[in-house]
């Protein structure tokens, strides 16, 4: 493949993707057919990936092709699947094992998937009458369809009919699932405003698991002062941090887009809360990332042609405890400010520096290299090292026995 220019294809007309490909001297695939195979590098939508890996499509990727999603990524990135897999993973681990491994499952707010778990939800709802809940469509993004709930009757929005307290079943108007979680009503506030974190994680392999974490990210701030006042429960500018929502606020700034760099946030937490508190917060965030990825390791189809860059949405509460909100398979690559553009341009650049080192498909020797840092990415977890250590230990113990 050396000296041969790679061909690229993208389903997204995003400058941060296209500029990266062009800057590397790669050639755009001229084949206009959606299901064409005349490419080496494809930044695809999740739907096209699903089609490619659909056995009925007859498509087989060759050794010189790489794509940006795993076939069944939705096990991690659909809200209902993520909850299902995390709950299953927790049940499968006995307490001793996951404590030994340092896994912690206490990062997911109590969540029910509708319609299946509606009756369980109702029970919990009545047990906690002052609890606010957040209702989200399982497979949508950008804050669409999300609302806060304090009365069962509000579920009329998704049921299409009146919902009463004594109903044990919920028939949804649309076919989509919903997830309903306990609303974290004591978020960490800075300047009196709620925010969440967007952090980037790259998985280049699930078996063994190899995870890279990006050193840049940002906090997404609401434009209005946070309040738990019931009168403001429907004010999305107070409660939902999605840029897609906040950009419609009168107070939205084009200059910073409500995005606060993660470096600034880390500095703030360390300065205002102390080094120990900051370190614990970061350790907890890393633990969330690892546990969530481990929870789907057994179910994800680990195809060698695939990698995936996830956008993790994490909410910090007033005690600096991180909570997992969701994981995005296609984190937005739209840039709202020059700083944002710089971040995402470098992000995509670093992704391809990892998956295609030296702008080429890595040979076996390159694959064996234990590189732990590339650009802004550092290895968060490399299971192959664990396996190597265990093999070495086994060989050692066999030697001793012999």
């Amino acid at each position, binding site marked *: 493949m050396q000296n041969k220019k790679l061909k690229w294809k993208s389903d997204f007309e995003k400058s941060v993707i296209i500029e990266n490909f062009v800057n590397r001297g790669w050639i755009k695939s001229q084949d206009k057919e959606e299901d064409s195979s005349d490419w080496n590098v494809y930044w695809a939508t999740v739907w096209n990936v699903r089609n490619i890996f659909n056995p009925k499509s007859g498509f087989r990727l060759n050794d010189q092709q790489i794509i940006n999603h795993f076939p069944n990524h939705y096990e991690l990135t659909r809200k209902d699947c993520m909850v299902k897999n995390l709950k299953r993973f927790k049940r499968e681990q006995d307490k001793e094992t996951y404590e030994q491994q340092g896994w912690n499952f206490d990062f997911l707010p109590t969540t029910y998937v509708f319609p299946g778990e509606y009756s369980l939800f109702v029970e919990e709802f009545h047990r906690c009458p002052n609890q606010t809940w957040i209702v989200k469509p399982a497979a949508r993004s950008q804050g669409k369809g999300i609302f806060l709930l304090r009365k069962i009757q509000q579920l009329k929005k998704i049921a299409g009919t009146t919902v009463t307290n004594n109903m044990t079943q919920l028939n949804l108007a649309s076919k989509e699932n919903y997830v309903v979680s306990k609303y974290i009503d004591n978020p960490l506030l800075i*300047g009196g405003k709620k925010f969440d974190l967007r952090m980037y994680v790259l998985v280049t392999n699930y078996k063994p698991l190899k995870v890279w974490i990006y050193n840049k990210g940002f906090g997404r701030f609401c434009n209005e002062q946070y309040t738990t006042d019931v009168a403001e429960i429907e004010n999305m500018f107070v409660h939902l941090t999605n840029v897609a929502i906040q950009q419609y606020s009168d107070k939205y*700034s084009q200059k910073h887009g409500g995005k606060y760099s993660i470096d600034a946030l880390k500095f703030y937490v*360390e*300065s*205002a*809360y*102390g*080094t120990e508190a900051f370190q614990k917060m970061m350790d907890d965030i890393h633990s969330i990332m690892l546990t969530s990825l481990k929870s789907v390791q057994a179910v994800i189809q680990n195809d060698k042609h695939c990698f995936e860059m996830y956008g993790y949405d994490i909410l910090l509460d007033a005690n600096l405890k991180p909570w997992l909100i969701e994981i995005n398979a296609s984190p937005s690559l739209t840039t709202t400010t020059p*700083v944002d553009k710089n971040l995402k341009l470098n992000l995509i650049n670093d992704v391809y520096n990892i998956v295609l080192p030296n702008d080429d498909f890595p040979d076996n020797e390159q694959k064996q290299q234990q590189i732990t840092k590339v650009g802004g990415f550092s290895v968060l977890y490399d299971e192959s090292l664990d396996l190597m250590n265990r093999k070495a230990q086994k060989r050692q113990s066999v030697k001793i026995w012999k």
Partner: protein
Amino acid sequence: MQQLDNQEILMKLKSQKQFWDIKKKVKQGFSDQQKIGINDIQKFAQSCEIEDQLIKLISHILKKSKKRETLKEDQIEFLNTSKIKWTELLFKNLDIVHQKAKNQEEDDTNTDSKLYIYDEKNLLAFLQTFKQQQPSVLYQNVQFQSNKLLNINIPLKSSQQILDKYQYILLQEELPEEKINKIRKSIENEHLDIELEKIAQTYVPNGERCLLYLKYFEFDHQETVLQQNFAKLQKECQNQLFIDELLEIDGHEISEDTFYFVFQEQILTCLKCFIRDKSIKENIRIQLQNGMKKEHAEFQLPVAGFFPFKNISKYVAPLCYLSTKIHIIYALFKEFFCRYFCFLHAISSEYNSILSLCMQIEEIVSTRSPKLFHHLKVIGCDTLKLIIHQLIYCFVGDMDPPHILTIYDQILGHDSLEILVILCVGFLNKYKPKLLLAKNYENVQQIFQELREDKFQELVQFAYKQ
């Protein structure tokens, strides 16, 4: 100055934790002995440095007992009359601004955004007028250098003295975790300002910075008092003043800053309280404006004793990183302003004053980088006009918050603003290659509009490059 008698000194000693630690040590040293003479105690104290510790502690108490008077009169009479003229000018500006604000209210299409009483350019332009007026006392024994913007006879430290003082920063390396932990423990245990200053000069861990500042300003056990005082001021903010409008407008720039927009409301609250704080007048080290009461005037000087200026928000902003509690942020801002930043806006011959700092910068650049100095003059862009913004606002907006707080550490550590001289010189040296290619002021502006990242250590290194 308040003098303490021995009884008072003893009472103050007993209020210090270190006194009791020393006493405990002495007791432990003589636990078995029945008869202890003065000589025994002296020998013991000298042997385990208790004598040194006690001397430092008593010096600290005596120093703290001296109430620092606000500097109102300058040794140079011309500067006193200049301060009066400056204040009169600001009163006039305030009237103009008030009229503009009224016009804007009445006419939405009129969006003249220059709603501030003065900015750094106005201040520099005023300082320049001293040269034009040439009063003889200011120019005695001064070699008149027409290429300098400011060249008047005020006591100045030698450039070499300043450069030598901060040279140690060049040798600072990244500290291992063990040493950082040691510094953390020192900050937790230390109470003497002289020791805290030493720490601030070398390295302050991010997580302990707030504690160091609180201890240095003796606020570490006064949180309730700070909270109560701040709450009183917040209540007074319910009565809206015209100046509040100007503070809100000033906050717009901060609200666009990617590092500080999250603190916009806190900054505004702090400033509104600040201009209403009566204690500022007693605590501020130097009088900014001559507080003459004007009869029948619509506006008088605010209670704090001076008119706020453009970008005053920038002084508060970095301190918002240090605490989640607004009364702590306010207390720290008040101390930093009253002790240090006030000098950046005072017409004075004091070492820390804006006049003195500007002249130091011109001196260093004209002697160590004469080519750059001359070139900037030729293209109509004086050195001082180029860096006045960075100087007056301590590089807030030019450097990331961690670097700004390192500047604040140095200011506190040396009880001086001279670090700004070093950084301004470094800033000019860093961009010297590009500046030397600039053909006019617009070229120069373009250089600084490009995305850049200036860092504390980097600018210090550049300051010493020739």
